[in-house]
């Protein structure tokens, strides 16, 4: 089932200066879409346009469901204010806002759902802990749990693993990958890690800052050594062995290993 359809959408903040050529893209249930591109290419702006936070400069963002799909969102560098005296569960429960509307209060079913999502990211034991007492990686996982508490049809993660160590990053992306299968939701994640996109995404969107172009397609067709080298302007080598993607960012050692797919 289609969730969102971008038709010839121009993206940017100034009408006379779109970030790249118009983009057409359909997001369907079950898609696991990786968005890659160098710094400043417009990855977050693309995400914000899809989420309705930034209006498109031209073109249309179609809603095949005749309504906005239910969204779960983790913003880039999402480090909410440490000063707020909120528990991990209270932060997670904010994910119910779209279901509860402005006036309803969370019921026990909402709390149970939030706890289940915390359990899914391995933090149920810290539900009562102050959110600000957690490490950056743990906070990021709480924000993912909050996004899942929204029971999203489309989960949007803008650099979700930027605060995480490799093990936590792999665990989170594995979780997201399993959710795509078990809950039949669509996931779109922005990443700087070529290996993360190579290992987990079924499709990728490549934003080329120099050429101001966008390419969308199956991961294995687009994530090639030649294409990545051109995109980042430095030698990148990608090898696929036994279902794993290995990525070298420069001649020599592989500095990032992709997950199983």
């Amino acid at each position, binding site marked *: 089932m289609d969730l969102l359809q971008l038709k010839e959408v121009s993206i940017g903040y100034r009408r006379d200066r779109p970030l790249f050529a118009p983009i057409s893209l359909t997001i369907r249930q079950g898609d696991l879409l990786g968005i890659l591109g160098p710094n400043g290419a417009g990855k977050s702006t693309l995400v914000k346009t899809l*989420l*309705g*936070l930034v209006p498109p400069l031209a073109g249309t963002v179609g809603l095949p469901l005749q309504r906005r799909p239910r*969204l779960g*969102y*983790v*913003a880039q560098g*999402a480090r*909410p*204010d440490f*000063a*707020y*005296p*909120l*528990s991990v569960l*209270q*932060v997670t429960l*904010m*994910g119910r*806002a*779209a279901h*509860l*509307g*402005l*006036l309803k*209060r969370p019921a026990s079913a909402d709390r149970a759902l939030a706890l289940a999502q915390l359990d899914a990211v391995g933090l149920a034991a810290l539900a009562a802990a*102050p959110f*600000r*007492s957690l490490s950056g990686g743990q906070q990021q996982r709480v*924000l993912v749990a*909050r996004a899942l508490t*929204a029971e999203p049809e489309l989960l*949007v993660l803008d650099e979700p693993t930027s605060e995480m160590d490799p093990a936590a990053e792999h665990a989170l992306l594995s979780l997201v990958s399993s959710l795509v299968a078990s809950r039949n939701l669509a996931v779109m994640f922005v990443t700087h890690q070529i290996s993360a996109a190579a290992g987990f995404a079924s499709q990728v969107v490549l934003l080329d800052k120099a050429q101001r172009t966008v390419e969308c397609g199956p991961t294995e067709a687009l994530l090639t050594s030649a294409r990545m080298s051109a995109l980042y302007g430095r030698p990148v080598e990608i090898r696929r062995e036994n279902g794993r993607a290995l990525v070298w960012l420069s001649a020599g050692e592989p500095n990032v290993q992709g997950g199983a797919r």
Partner: protein
Amino acid sequence: MSFWEARFLWQEPMLAALLGAALLGYLGFFVVLRRIAFMSAALSQLSGLGVAASFLAGSFAGIAPHDETPWWLSPTTFAFLFAYAGAALVTLPSRSKRVSSESMVALGYLGASALVMVVLSSPRIAQEAHEVGDLLFGNAVVVKREDLVQLAIAAAVTLSLHALFFRSFLFASFDPETARVSGVPVRRMDLLLHLTLAMSIAVATRALGALPVFGFVVLPAGAALLFSERLHLVLALSVGLSMLCAALGYYLSWTLSLPTGSVMVALAAGVFALGGLKRGLERLR
């Protein structure tokens, strides 16, 4: 005459101080966390400018500051209008990257403070200026019944709205971008929050004075955040500490013949310092 025997003199000012302290202590939770302490000072000055402007307008209509005025020309109406306009202006999205909302608040504070003096120096109302001082910025020692009633109404309206929308105010303050994606009308929630703040400050300033209002909005909530990391406890402490400082401050000022508003604020600052001391000791462990 003992403090208790003189209660007929201080009952209403004490009630106003407790009510104002509770209301402002609660609102302080958002003021401190959203880092808009200076905005509360600007709103207080703007409401004062509204009062001064109503006197000036009244002088053109031949009405003296202490005379009965029609509602549309009353100091309260003008105080609300000026404070609401200030709150709305701060909430509007800034189109200029060169002028931050902080600069707008500073402009409001400085502009209002200066204009109050200019208006009060006008020959049209200069002869009543000595009376206007208390009308502008209140006096916690003597509170008029009318001010107490207005304070009670403002508290009832503010707390009712916050009871309904607290969750949305909190989400919109904590993580506005995700709140927007989740369907929370962040800008409208911000405006509503700022308008309740403007209303409460405009009324409380006239009843208690500018200094206690600023003190109650900032210090008890700041102290509560140092004492606890639990949402409900922080809210309860913020309100409770604020009321404690108001009551104890009034008592001490009465018995020791000290300026009331200043004693209240000094106590609140002391509580804040205690919170800082507690946090400092925790870090040393």
